[in-house]
Every structure is written in C-alpha cells, then in structure tokens.
C-alpha cells in the first residue's frame, strides 16, 4: 500500500524542484503515471475513470487497474459512492473547474464540488481534490490547495479532502 502526504494529479510533467517548493510530496502525471479514461480497461498504467454513467463507474471500481473515479460534472451518484467506500477507492474532485473561471461560474462550480465532497464524507468514502492542471501556470501550491479545500468544506475541515491518500494494490 502506498501512502502519499500532499499529492496532486496534473496533465503535464513539472520539474521536481518546482514541485518540492510548492509543498507536494508527489505529483502524478497523466499519461506517464496514470491514465485518465472514460471507461475501464486496456491500459498498462493505473487508470482514473471519469464518467457520469453509473454502470461505467461500477465497472471501473471493480477493475483492479483503476485507482479512483471522477464524477463527470461533479454530480455524485450515491450508490457509486457507497461502492467506492466498500472497495476503498478514492473519488477525485477536480478543482480546475474553479481555477481560471469567472466569478459567476466559480460559485456554481463550488456548489457542485461541495455537494460531491459532502456525499463522499457522509458515506465514509475517500474524497481527494486534484488540480488536473494542464500548464505550469494552472498549478497551485499545496498551501493554496489547503485553502481551496477549506473553501469547499468550511474553515478547518479541508484536511478531509486534501492530505494523505492511500492507494491500494493497483499501484
């Protein structure tokens, strides 16, 4: 089992010195360390499946190569969250919908993230925020991630969705 303290998942390959300055223990790179897929299967590296379909997400959770799931549009499905809890797989909450948005769109995105985070916490599933940054400019530091986690759940509660992650045997 792998335990990482502050981690993130990005779509580009940042240099290690930069990441250590930002305060991350590890940043997984999409394409190198993990694959972002719309359905499970057909990959040599661990997958994260992003979908809004209940059947696809159920199949993804049962696949040993899938390390976590993303609810497309951050709309949580209760049965899937309960299954994720049962199998010990995390639900990732991408915050790139918050960063770089106008203030109106940001309020809407924050509401949906909050709803998804509460659904996971309520049922005991692991929920973790990730940036999915496409460029260096879109990255944020670990301190800023903590601030955003506090913004989603309320002051002092951010540690529930940003902090250590336990990945199972898949990695």
């Amino acid at each position, binding site marked *: 089992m792998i335990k990482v303290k502050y981690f993130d998942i990005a779509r580009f390959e940042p240099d290690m010195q930069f990441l250590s*300055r*930002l*305060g991350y223990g590890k940043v997984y790179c999409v394409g190198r360390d993990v694959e972002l897929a719309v359905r499970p299967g057909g990959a040599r590296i661990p997958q994260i499946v992003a979908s809004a379909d209940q059947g696809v997400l159920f199949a993804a959770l049962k696949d040993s190569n899938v390390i976590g799931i993303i609810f497309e549009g951050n709309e949580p499905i209760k049965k899937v969250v309960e299954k994720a809890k049962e199998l010990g797989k995390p639900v990732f909450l991408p915050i790139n919908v*918050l*960063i*770089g948005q106008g203030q109106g769109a*940001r309020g809407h995105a924050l509401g949906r993230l909050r709803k998804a985070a509460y659904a996971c916490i309520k049922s005991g599933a692991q929920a973790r925020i990730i940036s999915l940054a496409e*460029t*260096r*400019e*879109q*990255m*944020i*530091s670990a*301190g*800023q991630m903590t*601030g*955003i986690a*506090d*913004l989603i759940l309320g002051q002092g509660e951010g540690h529930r969705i940003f902090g250590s992650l336990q990945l199972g045997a898949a990695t």
Partner: protein
Amino acid sequence: MIQRYKNRYVLVESSMPINTADRAAESEIMRSIESEMGRIGHLQANPRIVHQVNDSVFIVRTNRGYERHAVLALAFIKSFGGRGAGFYTIRISGTIRSLMDFCRKTYAKTAENVRKR
C-alpha cells in the same frame, strides 16, 4: 493602551518575471487581488508587496488573520499583463527574517540579489 498591529508575510513565486518596483506592475497585482477578495476583504487584509527576493519571487504583507484570504486570491489569479500567469504561495510566516532564511536555502543563487524596497 497602544495596540501593536501584527502582520503575516507570504512568500509568493510567480510563473513569470515581475518587477514589483514598477508601480504599474505592482498596482496590477493589487487590482487583481482586490478583484478576487472584494473591496471589504481587501481593506481587511490590506495586502502590500514589501520585498522582492528575485525576478519572480516576492513577499506580500497582510494583516494577521486574513493571510488565508490573500493566499486564495493569489490562487485564482491566472493572468498578468494580458498573458497567462500563476502565483504560488510558498510559505507564510510572522517575520520577514524567517522567510528570508528560507529563501537563502531555497533560492540560494538568487538570494544575494535581495533588495529592500
């Protein structure tokens, strides 16, 4: 009784070189922060750029208790001078001295160029 105002200092790294001695650049950063925090939040936090460590690293002073607001505001700023930019908060401290010690270790080569504004 004379009350002493306590501040918090935030070490900020930007993705592009920024000369904060240039009034136009400084005011653009402040305008962006104010736009994210709102007028009241900006007045409460009262952020100011107090030191430039190197081309892309500077220190922002805020009122104690509002530093998290400034950190979040900086996270949401993604453009500067019409180009894409990122502002990363590296460390928060109660004194400039401890931030400068951290800078000497982290940015060893460029710490010699520290200039006080």
